[in-house]
């Protein structure tokens, strides 16, 4: 059976990608969101924000994280919807590799989110974002994004499996789109009210955002060296990834429709 793991998984990836492309409303929203948010933050909010330099140079990593949060919410809903349909029972009663069904969802989620990230970057460059990073630092930033999205995708899949109903899974979108506001995504933590400062300084999204910011712009908004933030971000992503992967696999093996 193991010899078919690759072929089973590629069938499932094809299935999930097809399904993503055939949901035109969700697909359109996911593609519009990065562009709209970019214009909103840079031209409407950004006028009066003092972040040292042009606001677009500050906000790109925050928008990437925000869009990834939205994308993870979509993944949670997609997984919950799929699990409540009869086809998953059929898959489970077939001699196929157990992890392939989830792997299909994760790869599709990764593809959707990387496309959204590419749009954020393109929109940013379009409105005057000028990162100073070397190609090597660019590569490191992309690696950070991939690790983050992968961890978020597994977390979203586990959440979708846990709550079972697509309606409940929607709440993941809300939570994941809210948490970035309590980080250094849109404003430096020193401008936040005193009560929120420790939250922003110590939550996982901040080092992930600061790593990207440090790599692209040469300095972080927290003043910490980028290496320090990157280490912290790597640990956070690894922990989320391992825990979410284990939870999702366990929930999938246990779950039954109905």
């Amino acid at each position, binding site marked *: 059976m193991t010899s078919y793991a690759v*072929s*089973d998984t590629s069938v499932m990836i094809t*299935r999930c990608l097809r399904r993503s492309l*055939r949901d035109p409303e969700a697909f359109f929203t996911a593609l519009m969101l990065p562009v709209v948010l970019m214009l909103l933050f840079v031209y409407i909010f950004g006028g009066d924000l003092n972040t040292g330099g042009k606001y677009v140079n500050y906000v790109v990593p925050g928008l990437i994280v925000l869009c990834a949060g939205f994308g993870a919410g979509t993944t949670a809903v997609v997984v919950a919807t799929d699990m409540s*349909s009869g086809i998953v029972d*059929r898959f489970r009663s*077939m*001699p196929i590799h157990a992890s392939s069904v989830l792997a299909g969802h994760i790869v599709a989620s990764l593809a959707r989110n990387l496309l959204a990230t590419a749009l954020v970057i393109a929109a940013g460059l379009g409105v005057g974002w000028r990162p100073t990073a070397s190609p090597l630092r660019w590569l490191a930033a992309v690696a950070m994004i991939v690790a983050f999205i992968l961890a978020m995708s597994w977390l979203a899949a586990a959440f979708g499996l846990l709550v079972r109903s697509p309606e409940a899974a929607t709440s993941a979108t809300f939570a994941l789109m809210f948490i970035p506001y309590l980080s250094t995504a849109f404003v430096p933590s020193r401008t936040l009210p005193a009560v929120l400062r420790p939250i922003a300084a110590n939550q996982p999204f901040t080092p992930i955002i600061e790593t990207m910011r440090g790599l692209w712009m040469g300095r972080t908004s927290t003043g910490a060296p980028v290496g320090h933030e990157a280490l912290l971000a790597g640990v956070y992503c690894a922990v989320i990834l391992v825990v979410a992967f284990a939870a999702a696999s366990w929930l999938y093996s246990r779950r*039954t429709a*109905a």
Partner: protein
Amino acid sequence: MTYTVHVQGLRKSFGGGTGAKVVLDGVDLAVETGSIFALLGPNGAGKTTLVRILATLIRPDAGTAKVAGRDLLADPLGVRRSISLTGQYAAVDDMLTGDENLRMMARLLHLRPREAAGRSAELLAEFGLADAGDRRVKTYSGGMRRRLDLAISMIAVPQLLFLDEPTSGLDPRSREQLWGTVRKLADEGVTVLLTTQYLAEADVLADRIALLDHGRIVAEGSADELKSSLRGEVVRLQFTDPADYKRALREVDALRADERLRTVEVGTDGSAASVYRLLGQLQAAGAPAARVSVERPSLDDVFLSLTENLTSANTGDNRHEQNASAR
């Protein structure tokens, strides 16, 4: 005689502690190879749970089961290779086309891409879906979805096909069509285990029928055996005058009576002489019947009488005792 399914003492409860709900309470079952076997029962009887256990989706709490000669618990993978499951809601992907569904499943059964495409085209034609193959399943009618579901099950002809309530929600014509398809599959040697709450469906399709109620098999046999186990035919008499109805009730030994419809049912051997005698007796008593019909018992009667008996025999403490002694 060989059996494709052989189940002994299967038990399953959901939830733990004192709130545990017993869904299967010691089920024994044997399904002969090549036959169509119907599990008949009301909602909540445990039909779907039994199918899900036999399809390796959930594990039983106790009992043994062999499916296609393989032990369910020791060799679930072997079981999965010999079965095909169609769920209560057609197990197909709505967002894909019929052709894509078939190819995907064929690839998962490890056919090469070219073989998968060929098999898909064959099955679409065979199941009357050739024109709809490139349409998304979302646009299919209920009958078409079920046919696609069955077509998927036939990619690699399974030894055992589970059909969980295959015709629920279908119109009468689609139901007839689906019955025809199921019969054709059985003729090709596939053993079929179907669940249904439609007695007519079991009557028409199944070689053998098991009645499942409260997690136990309460009767098993062919449709004819079950019907004749109940009672003979009945004469159904209808009266226009309520007074006649009351007089008739006093005069004859009624099996059933309905005051609103003013009908009385009396047991009979079905012979003309006995019906003639009955009518004469009522005429003489001054309670002439307005309409007469002779009816054979239906599976509905068998089912209702068996489930009624069970409820009336097992009320109160008696029920607990019976369950306790069964354990």
